[in-house]
């Protein structure tokens, strides 16, 4: 038998006050997650926590038996961004998730790293390059279907772990522009860090009143959480070793509990999906996983 799938708490994508972040990870230490990704990945202007703070959180989580990974920015623009990325890459304590090729270059051949979801690993040839440089795990791009994941994983070098985005609002796009600042008619350099007032981002609805997207600073997310809870058997069969759960301000511990139970077979796909549905105002989606439009409603319990 293969080992049970592990749960990974993805990096916090929103901007929360320092105390909220510390409280969140203090709680997370008790959740049934195996891996915790830490660090700021979205916007370099968000500096409630410094690298030292993330390392301290990492140490306390590691002491509770969690695997800790530090994530790099998904978009690097300035010299300061590069310096921060290098500081993360050289942290000396924890494995690093590389989210752009500059980070891959900084880590290549030096230590095992996680190939993050923004590296666009759509095929086995790309994964082979990254594995050759030291990637020990890859996080699939959100667009890759179950069949695509399975095909890449099947050809992956031995021992490479495969992580999919199993729960949460999908990070769909990143820009040099800040859409939260734009909403407030502020410029990016004088954004007043307004996104700290939106712990779940700013909801974008269509003109006919349907929840569609979420503005999270320079990042745009789906309004629907993607949920693979209905097809964890399929995920396992596809070679998935890690299920990524994306932090939200409320209910993330319950999400972890549901996924743990579902992955262990203690909850049916239908039961798991029903419990998750209570945690989010917008119904879940899983279209990408099924090879269609990402927004397509999740099919609870599909085989």
């Amino acid at each position: 038998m293969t080992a049970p799938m592990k749960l990974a708490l993805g990096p916090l994508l929103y901007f929360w006050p320092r105390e909220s972040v510390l409280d969140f990870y203090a709680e997370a230490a008790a959740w049934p997650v195996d891996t915790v990704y830490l660090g700021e990945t979205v916007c370099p202007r968000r500096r409630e926590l410094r690298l030292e703070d993330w390392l301290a959180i990492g140490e306390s989580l590691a002491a509770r038996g969690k695997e800790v990974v530090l994530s790099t920015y998904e978009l690097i623009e300035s010299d300061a961004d590069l310096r921060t990325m290098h500081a993360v890459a050289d942290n000396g304590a924890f494995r690093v998730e590389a989210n752009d090729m500059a980070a891959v270059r900084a880590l290549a051949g030096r230590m095992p790293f996680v190939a993050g979801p923004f590296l666009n690993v759509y095929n086995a040839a790309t994964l082979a390059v990254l594995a050759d440089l030291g990637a020990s795990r890859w996080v699939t791009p959100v667009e890759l279907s179950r069949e695509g994941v399975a095909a890449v994983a099947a050809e992956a070098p031995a021992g490479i772990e495969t992580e999919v985005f199993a729960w949460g609002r999908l990070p769909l796009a990143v820009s040099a522009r800040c859409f939260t600042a734009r909403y407030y008619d502020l410029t990016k350099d004088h954004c007043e860090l307004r996104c700290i007032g939106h712990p779940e981002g700013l909801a974008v609805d269509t003109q006919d009143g349907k929840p569609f997207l979420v503005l999270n600073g320079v990042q745009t997310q789906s309004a629907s959480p993607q949920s693979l809870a209905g097809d964890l058997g399929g995920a396992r069969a596809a070679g998935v070793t890690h299920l990524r759960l994306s932090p939200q301000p409320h209910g993330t511990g319950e999400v972890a509990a549901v996924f743990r139970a579902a992955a262990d077979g203690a909850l049916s796909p239908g039961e798991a999906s029903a419990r998750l549905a209570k945690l989010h105002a917008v119904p879940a989606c899983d279209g990408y996983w099924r090879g269609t439009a990402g927004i397509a409603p999740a099919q609870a319990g599909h085989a």
Partner: protein
Amino acid sequence: MAQAAAPEAPARRLKLVCPAGTPPALKIAVDQGADDVYLGFKDETNARNFAGLNFDERSLREGIDYAHRKGAQVLLALNTFPQPATWRKWQSAVDRAAALGVDAIIVADTGLLAYASRTHPALRLHLSVQGSATSHEAINFHHERFGIRRAVLPRVLSVEQAEKVVSRTPVEIEVFGFGSLSIMVEGRCALSSYATGESPNTHGGCSPARAVRWQETPRGLESRLGGVLIDRFAAADHPGYPTLCRGRFVVNGDTYYPFEEPTSLNTLELLPRLQAMGVAAIKIEGRQRSPVYVQTVTRVWREAIDACARERERFRVRPAWQEALAGISEGRQCTLGAYHRPWK
């Protein structure tokens, strides 16, 4: 190859890279003085996979022949991301490109870059804008690993940032000069596939036409993409194509363009700066645009680049150029995009 090497040309004259969506556009671009033309095969291996566009092997062979006789180079875009089921199609596209004698291929996918550099070491590689390399370190990674000779900068950097990149890499840098403006980092946007199942990364097109629906309603003309309401127009409005990031949506009761208003990029006035900082090439967007567009934009930019090479800091943008470009811009409003950041 370009036999007509221009001995008098200044060493740093910017190359003009023009879109060739079709064989007629290729001829027009070459005739109007493009240094490079870029094009794609008729399939999803390139990021402008639209009906009626692009080249089969025969038209590509003729196009290469035409361009080479006039001293222009042909760059083939293979800038989408092959998936396991379609990997061989992309691989074979690289092989065909090499066999046909294109002057370079423009590639985004890491695995495909590795394949091309290993299998066709003499084939010149350009890193596509879809490769999302926004720093000199990311560009140098591709240089060190795959020997890329040129990189196209994502349309997100300021002039100052672009200048730093240019000064720290041996790779030629190509920047966007004119055309439709992408608000998201290229290669990092899945908005289109979220609504429709197809994106630039996976299918070579954003907001695909097959997913577009127009409907007259009592509230106005509605445009939908994959069933999602993108915009609603009153009679006086000019309805634009429902590209997702140019839609009007509602945030906390405010209906506005949360991402961007329809505008075009136009960097003519930055030419002296781009030339002085050592940018190698200026790219004109628009393989999906008409031959008239290609003719106008190539003629204007050829004149402007030549004038800039002669006049350097005395260079001034001619009103006639701006007038001609304004007539073919989407949204009829031009901006300097990220190069100059009014939104910073």
